[in-house]
């Protein structure tokens, strides 16, 4: 049963949170996963989300914000519906990671950590995403795309724009 009378989260997420607090020896352990799922649900970690998560875990909001500010995948501002994360770390860099990034910038007309005017896409240059042997690589939301070329990037972004892209949450 939810410890929160009226959750701001979707029923599925609220149910997931009810379960999360029961599986760890200490309730607080659910904090990092909760912040991620809250972000999946709301698009970013809102003030209301911080407040409800603090309540669910018997923490101060300060405790939640302290953790929230540490992890690079957590955000307190909206991203695009499709968050494009291009890896430019060493293995990707030397086989074209920056070409992929530059292509995304041109194609979407936005820079690092910016969102398109229609809110569809956001773009980030990110550190290694663990796809070094299939470089250059990027993630759109949580879906991996490897062995990229500018042409492949175009096809992938076309797919997402047309609602055909995969979303792994």
């Amino acid at each position, binding site marked *: 049963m939810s410890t929160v009378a009226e959750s701001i989260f979707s029923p599925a997420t609220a149910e997931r949170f009810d379960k999360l607090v029961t*599986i*760890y*020896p*200490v309730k*607080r*352990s*659910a*904090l*990092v*996963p909760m*912040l*991620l799922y809250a972000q999946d649900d709301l698009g970013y970690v809102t003030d209301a989300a911080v407040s409800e998560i603090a309540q669910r*875990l018997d923490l101060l909001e300060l405790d939640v914000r*302290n*953790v929230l500010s*540490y*992890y*690079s*995948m*957590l955000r307190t501002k909206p991203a695009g519906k499709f968050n494009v994360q291009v890896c*430019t*770390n*060493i*293995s990707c*860099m*030397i*086989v074209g*990671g*920056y070409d992929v*990034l*530059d292509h995304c910038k041109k194609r979407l007309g936005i820079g*690092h*950590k910016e969102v398109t005017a229609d809110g569809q896409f956001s773009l980030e*240059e990110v*550190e*290694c*995403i*663990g*796809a*070094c*042997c*299939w*470089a250059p690589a990027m*993630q759109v939301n*949580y*879906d*991996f795309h*490897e*062995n990229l070329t500018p042409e492949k990037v175009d096809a992938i972004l076309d797919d997402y724009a047309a609602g055909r892209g995969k979303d*792994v*949450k």
Partner: protein
Amino acid sequence: MPTLVSHPDEVKILSRRFGQGAAELDRYLELDGYKAAQLAIDNGPEWVINEMKASGLRGRGGAGFPTGMKWSFVPKQSEKPKYVLVNGDESEPGTCKDHVIFLHDPHAIIEGTMIAGLAIGAKMGFIYLRGEYRYLLKIVEKAVADAYAKGILGKNIFGREGIDFDIVTQTGAGAYEVGEESALMESLEGKRGVPRIKPPFPAVVGLYGGPTVINNAETIASAPHILLMGGAEYAKIGSERNGGTRLFGISGMVERPGVYELPMGYNLKKAIYDVAGGVKGGKKLKAVVPGGSSCPVLTADELDVGLDFDQMAKAGTMLGSGGIVVLDETVSMVEFALRTIKFYQHESCGWCIPCREGTDWLKKTLTRFYDGGGNAKDINNIQYLAENMMGRTFCPLGDAAAMPTLGFIKKFRHEFEEYLQGKRTEKHFITTDELVGAAH
């Protein structure tokens, strides 16, 4: 979906189930799945630890500590519950081997976690993946749920009275530092992922204050195979003091990049030229980062060395996480050094000063240098900074930034000097407007 590669020189032990649908429990069981866990229950903890010791398996996360010995350090009696923590927070640039295990053989990691638990007397294990691996978490979550449904996890596993084991899976949220074992525990306890002071070591005071074994995902996935084939047999495959095989991720400018399973001690040059097909497009090889970005670079003349912890140390570098990055003649070492340091600066947790300030100054100096504003003193300053970070930080992140930097300066000093004189590679990769001022 990452493509699987193959080469006749591979010795497929850990990877023998890859590409065979083993993420499905029934298929895993057909391929000898969970037999090793039952052997562990039948023969008891002492047998398991002895087999692990006999195997010569050394931790695959990078440090290379003997796994059997690590497990034996956990006190037999403990007032607090004991735990197993699987480190799947694979974030070292150049490394993507655990990615493939989670994708193709998640049950091997679950089974290994159970075996470690049985060996140390833990009833609970955690599998922690990096945040970016959400799609892999889904695969592992399904595997765990399937194992529970079949009575392989939970209470009285395999129908054996009093043998219980639970597994919790989760991801982080994007922090390289969390790959360090004590920071990983902090993160799992719902805190900022910053390192703890050691001692006490996790084997005595770990997760929630209880004795904890923390192993890399590849190490844990090796355990079932070792018990099935016998520790002594496994040890025969590798080189002296380096038992078995390991997954090597060969990336960068090679014809056939990919994750290959090779015996420990396999020749690095052969791995690049034979296994991975040599340098892409017939270009000249310039340098190799042999074990993930924290390992000092090797020049083209230094590649005739065996891939194991001891031989690599003797060669002045490290086996690390087994992520081999191959650079051809077109890569500027100044640029490569900057991209490497940009990573460590971004990922420093900021808790201790030598790392926080050191990585920042290294990045600022290298950025200015790269942008054409460098001078002759900078090269010495970079070296001085890196030397003063070494061994002076709470956790190995400071060393991980300093060691490759020192390698670049030591082995490619001429390139830094020539860069000052205006000699540049044709193409610049990094767009420095996002680098200046260390804004992110």
